[in-house]
């Protein structure tokens, strides 16, 4: 199957057209964030203060890259395990976040928010950080520089390969992919 090309920003309408199991190639601007940055963003939201990035129609990539060698945009940059962001993701989805890239399971509260607002959970290959780094053309820290690898970065990506794991209808590749395979083994 030919991968679907996505260029950011990603509107909720476009997000709702993507189906669990679709292969995609993501291009444009995306933002990085993991545990510590998510915690800070949600503290700001709770206090009613503005966040350093506008997440509306944006994609957040759960990644803490390794340092860039001279002449390179970024170091190794694969996804981190997503469930650690489950406590924070629903609040960001409510703010208009339409895509998350990570790996591993998500909790029911995240999936409910995704269905309600039109947001998609993409999986990039965990452990394939060297391969994925080749798709990142530019990286700059836009917030929380003190967090080092956990700072929020603005990435310009070209054809970043990912798979729709959970779509905006809540269909989950981790469930049906495994079941489909097991059916062939009966």
């Amino acid at each position: 199957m030919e991968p679907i090309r996505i260029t950011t920003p990603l509107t909720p309408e476009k997000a709702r057209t993507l189906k669990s199991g679709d292969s995609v190639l993501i291009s444009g601007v995306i933002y990085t964030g993991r545990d510590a940055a998510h915690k800070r963003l949600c503290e700001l939201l709770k206090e009613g203060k503005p966040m350093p990035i506008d997440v509306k129609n944006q994609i957040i990539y759960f990644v803490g890259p390794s340092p860039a060698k001279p002449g390179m945009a970024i170091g190794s940059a694969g996804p981190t395990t997503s469930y650690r962001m489950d406590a924070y993701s629903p609040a960001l989805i409510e703010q208009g976040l339409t895509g998350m890239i990570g790996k591993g399971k998500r909790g029911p509260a995240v999936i409910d928010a995704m269905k309600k607002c039109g947001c998609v959970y993409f999986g990039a290959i965990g452990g394939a950080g060297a391969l994925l780094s080749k798709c990142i053309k530019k990286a700059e820290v836009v917030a929380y520089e003190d967090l080092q690898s956990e700072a929020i970065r603005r990435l310009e990506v070209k054809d970043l390969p990912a798979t729709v794991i959970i779509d905006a209808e809540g269909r989950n590749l981790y469930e049906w992919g495994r079941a489909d395979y097991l059916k062939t083994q009966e």
Partner: protein
Amino acid sequence: MREIDSKQITDVVARLCVNANRHLAGDVRKCIEGCRACEPWPIAQEILDRIIENYNIADRTEMAICQDTGLACVFLEIGQDVHVNGSIEDAVNEGVRKGYTEGFLRKSCVEEPLGARKNTLDNTPAMIYYELVPGDQVKITVAPKGFGSENMSQIKMLKVSDGAEGVKDFVVKVVEEAGPNPCPPIVVGVGIGGTFDKAALMAKKAIIRPLEERHPVKYYADMEAELLERINALGIGPQGFGGRTTALAVNIETMPTHIAGLPVAVNINCHVTRHKTEVL
């Protein structure tokens, strides 16, 4: 008595940190490529191809295979007949500092587990495991350990009556609960026996044992084979998208234990199972 300067340990540790993170060990490559050849499920084949492409890129371009370059686990087997001039602990940490800084590896260590969780900025301190052995050599193994898989590890003090079936069911349960989270295909390290802490240590050592090497006792070697088969019948597959290749290997380590006890620890490692060794 043979003398070694601690500076030599620093140099070796620094080199091993960089090499382990950039060049995937031969046994792991061979195992992944063997599993790719046997994998019947198309999406799983595709994922395994990308995983192979990834470690080849890392190898060729001298970059980290995975951005999580881990906590630096350093195993030292120190011969009784060797004397190291200077602090061994300081020498190891200096090596980690040097390797992670000069090698463009991610610094993933925080000072305190709670509170501010401030990054130590040089990936120290190393997690150091000392062992005294006969001879006059120092064997150093660096095994950077990523936490996506570490977080999926579990330990349980089983009842003696749970027996071998209880052990096997627990191992399979840990892998099934982990599902896609630890970046399958995984390496499953199992420690059976000893005390609470020794079981965990054996499980950690099990994941750095060469993947093609079986337990020396046939009973446990058979258990390794049976567990691998049961785990690969779960259907989780590479990255959890479905498929046969959920685990690359199950390595069991065992030791004597108390008449009342059956400790079992399961340490999970991802497909980027890293370890490099040098002998001084």
